[in-house]
């Protein structure tokens, strides 16, 4: 597959978010020339563990962190490269994100943006990855409590799976696109454990009705739905910075009520289309094929998909 060369002359706003590398996403998302990377590839802080498995390493261990501006606002940014080891959390990868969040506590940027693209924990560094994920969640909560919004952007090929899905659930706000999936267990793992009757992992339409961007947006699992372009993600992130809920007892009480209500209303549903029907969608079967504009219209008509309980 072809790599898009970062052309310093073009802004690249029409670039597909899904197809872009992590570096290209950061480059396109932030104000031109504003990105300052920390622990960049030239420092060669690579995985100390992958050579044991005869696996190639990445200069940045698949995690890019640094600072920049978003429409003039100072932000800290982390971006996962989903094509390297499935964007999975290893020791260095996780530590860079933990460090960024701790830096944000001291620096108090207008927001921290996390560009998710991860299958979860990197098996070869499982214990380090898993612990890092827990450290990230604790750091995000601390940051939110200190008044810094943490915005998650999900639209890459690896999605936000496993521990990545849990981290996403701690963010103040989430932007998701059609291609972005959010889940804990992956389709193959469910099928291996429970059989194809339970989940046919080769049924792509089923995967997207269950874990995909539109479904998550409709059920309030994400707060904004973006077209698959850098420009759309940029605009959505900007919109959400000003609408981040506080991290306090009231918010968590509201989330408890929201999540309890979801179980009551949809707990017996077998498929995404059933849930959408109960939400008031007239033609649930047509949802997957809806254009962004049509989907936005649908969301506006439903109203209840937007909340502050995260």
């Amino acid at each position, binding site marked *: 597959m072809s*790599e898009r*060369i*970062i052309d*310093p002359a073009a802004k690249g706003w029409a670039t597909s978010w899904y197809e872009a*590398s992590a*570096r290209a996403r950061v480059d396109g998302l932030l104000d031109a020339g504003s990105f300052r990377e920390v622990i960049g*590839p*030239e420092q*060669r802080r690579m995985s100390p563990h992958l*050579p044991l498995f*005869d*696996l*190639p*390493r*990445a*200069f940045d261990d698949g995690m890019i962190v640094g600072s920049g501006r978003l429409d003039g606002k100072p932000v800290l940014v982390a971006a996962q*490269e989903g*094509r*390297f080891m499935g964007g999975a959390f290893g020791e260095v990868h996780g530590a860079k994100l933990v460090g960024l969040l701790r830096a944000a506590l001291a620096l108090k940027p207008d927001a921290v943006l996390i560009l998710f693209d991860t299958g979860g924990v990197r098996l070869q560094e499982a214990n380090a990855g898993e612990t890092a994920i827990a450290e990230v969640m604790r750091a995000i909560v601390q940051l939110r409590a200190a008044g810094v919004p943490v915005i998650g952007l999900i639209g890459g090929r690896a999605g936000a799976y496993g521990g990545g899905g849990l981290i996403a659930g701690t963010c103040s706000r989430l932007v998701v696109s059609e291609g972005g999936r959010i889940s804990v267990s992956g389709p193959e793992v469910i099928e291996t454990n429970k059989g194809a009757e339970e989940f046919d992992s080769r049924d792509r339409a089923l995967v997207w009705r269950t874990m995909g961007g539109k479904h998550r947006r409709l059920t309030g699992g994400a707060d904004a739905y973006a077209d698959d372009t850098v420009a759309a993600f940029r605009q959505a992130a900007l919109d959400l910075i000003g609408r981040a809920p506080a991290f306090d007892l009231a918010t968590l009480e509201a989330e408890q009520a929201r999540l309890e209500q979801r179980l009551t209303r949809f707990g017996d549903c077998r498929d995404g289309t059933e849930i959408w029907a109960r939400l008031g969608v007239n033609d649930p079967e047509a949802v997957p094929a809806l254009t962004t504009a049509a989907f936005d219209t649908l969301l506006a008509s439903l109203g209840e998909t937007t909340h502050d309980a995260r």
Partner: protein
Amino acid sequence: MEKLSFRHTTQRALAGAKAQAITGVVASGNLEVLLERALAPTECTVEIETPIRGYGEVWAAVVADFVARAQPGGLRITINDGGARPDTVSLRLLQGARLMEV
């Protein structure tokens, strides 16, 4: 992992003043190339780490061809290979050189 290292002399330094560039991703059939303007103007080194052993001669030929074409004098080039084919390697190296010429 196999480590390979090549040193070349070029006729001239690579144009431009860019200090560093990176292109590509470490994934199956792909590779990551880091370029740093770090050497004397007519020196070029290419270091490779690859999980696919036994292709030293192919790498040597691809690198020599790239050096002859791009004249990347002054560049220290480091590669993390994910098992890319020679034509992909050539493409990335040329992409990288182009990024450095800015």
